């Protein structure tokens, strides 16, 4: 019997498979299909201080082995997430959930994190300083060591739960940004958010996405994610939640060998709603195939 359990910032989870924020809503659509308690945990839809409609449509475009999205953090705002979404979620999910938070100012991040930190269902705070699809906030916090440090420090000052900082790949030196987060007290790093991209409609000769640019995700970006996780693993001591194109149990193993303690699965959920369940079901078989008895022993194994 293989062991898929891992510990993420002191909280033990049954397996390292975590649906990524923005691809799993608040879990209900998937709970109609299977018991979502099979997940390690999941990262819920990116939440901001105030309700947001997000960007105009089209927000989605097809790409080679992947997709672009520019949803722009549509969410009902933190008050409604706490009063409406979390109670609904409690009916279908009895594990700790990862609260994904975004903001447009330092105060926004502090306000939203402080509120969600007090929720019993929340196990971790995943602070998104890397959304490529909003203007005047989001990714801009994650593209310099100074601002990444500041957000981390400010959030850590008002919270008690593990804080995971979600990083952008749209930078020249992701390892130094991860190190800045670590020095500010981050408990973990999650990476990578989407890669900024564009598609153009040949008939209209204009970008397909109304926001013009979007975030590229899907299997195409996995080599980029692996490389960056590998680099950050060498730069920090805190755990890494690796993501970017993961679609199979073997992808999970590969990401963990690069240095990830757990993984998030994003775009794959949109193509195959059973993706996470299937990965979890396949994981023990894949472990046996590669002679892995205990999954946590392979973390960073490629170094």
């Amino acid at each position, binding site marked *: 019997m293989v062991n898929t359990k891992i510990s993420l910032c002191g909280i033990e989870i049954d397996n390292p498979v975590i649906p990524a924020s*923005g*691809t*799993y*809503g608040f879990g209900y*659509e*998937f709970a*109609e*299909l299977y018991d979502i308690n099979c997940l390690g945990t999941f990262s819920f*839809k990116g939440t901001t201080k105030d309700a947001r*409609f*997000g960007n105009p*449509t*089209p*927000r*989605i*475009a*097809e*790409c*080679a*082995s*992947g*997709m672009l*999205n520019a*949803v722009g953090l*549509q969410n009902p705002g933190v008050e409604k997430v706490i009063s409406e979404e979390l109670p609904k979620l409690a009916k279908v999910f009895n594990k700790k959930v990862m609260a994904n938070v975004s903001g447009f100012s330092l105060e926004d991040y502090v306000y939203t994190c402080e509120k969600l930190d007090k929720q019993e269902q929340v196990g971790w705070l995943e602070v998104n300083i890397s959304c490529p699809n909003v203007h005047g906030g989001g990714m801009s916090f994650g593209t310099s060591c100074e601002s990444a440090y500041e957000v981390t420090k400010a959030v850590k000052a008002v919270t008690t739960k593990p804080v995971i900082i979600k990083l952008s790949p749209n930078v020249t030196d992701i390892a130094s940004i991860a190190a800045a987060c670590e020095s500010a007290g981050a408990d973990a790093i999650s990476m990578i958010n989407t890669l900024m991209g564009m598609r153009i409609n040949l008939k209209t000769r204009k970008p*397909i996405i109304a926001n013009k640019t979007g975030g590229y995700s*899907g299997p195409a970006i996995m080599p980029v994610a692996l490389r960056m996780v590998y680099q950050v693993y060498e730069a920090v001591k805190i755990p890494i939640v690796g993501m970017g194109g993961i679609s199979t149990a073997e992808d999970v193993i590969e990401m963990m060998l690069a240095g990830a303690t757990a993984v998030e699965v994003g*775009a794959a*959920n*949109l*193509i*195959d*709603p*059973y993706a996470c369940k299937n990965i979890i079901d396949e994981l023990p078989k894949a472990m046996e195939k590669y002679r892995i008895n205990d999954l946590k022993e392979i973390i960073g194994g490629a170094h």
Partner: protein
Amino acid sequence: MKQTVFEIISNKKIAKDVYEMVLMGDTQGIAPGQFVNIKLEGLYLRRPISVCDYDEKTLTLVYKVVGKGTEQMSTMSKGVKLDLLTGLGNGYDSAKSGEMPLLIGGGVGVPPMYAQAKKLIFEGKTVSVILGFNASDEIFYEEEFKKIGARVFVTTVDGSVGIKGFVTDALSEVGEYSYVYTCGPEVMLKAVYNATVVSGQYSFEERMGCGFGACMGCTCKTKYGNKRICKDGPVLEKEEIIW
């Protein structure tokens, strides 16, 4: 929502760039006005196609070749198996139709009208249908609608068949109607909205990510709040639409 494998029974061209694909599989839970989301080889995102017709064992999709996905579908033969998500979207609500509903389909907005017309006729309603096309070579399903007992009015923009003009130009010939069900290009939906006084249900189209409400890729604003076209739509009530 259900994820199931369907097998193609037939796939044939029925008008200019328009194909009819009949598939065999588990059709339980499928309703008029809904859509299915199809996984295709070599393409990442599934392709959403509206439900044209269904019975206990078969599902009929009528689609127009507009891009790589539908082009690939048009070349598929009998026996090919496809991975489908079915039962997607809210579909039409027949309860509000009144006794004399009017169905208006434009171009590839015609197919979803067929299953809805069948359902309303089965329920004993007097159904009128306006089918709008650009030209005679694009016309499909006129006979199918007649066979199930609908009063059919065809319009063509070039006047080659039926009433010359747009679907709204046929309204005066229809006479009295109690409610409108419609699907077509947004410009057509808006024209129908303005040209009719009765209430109705309007089916919208948007580029989708997942098709089942998870990604928020297709959200629109309505008077009743934000709605995901794939999950809370594609059918919206006339009263909630914001143009």
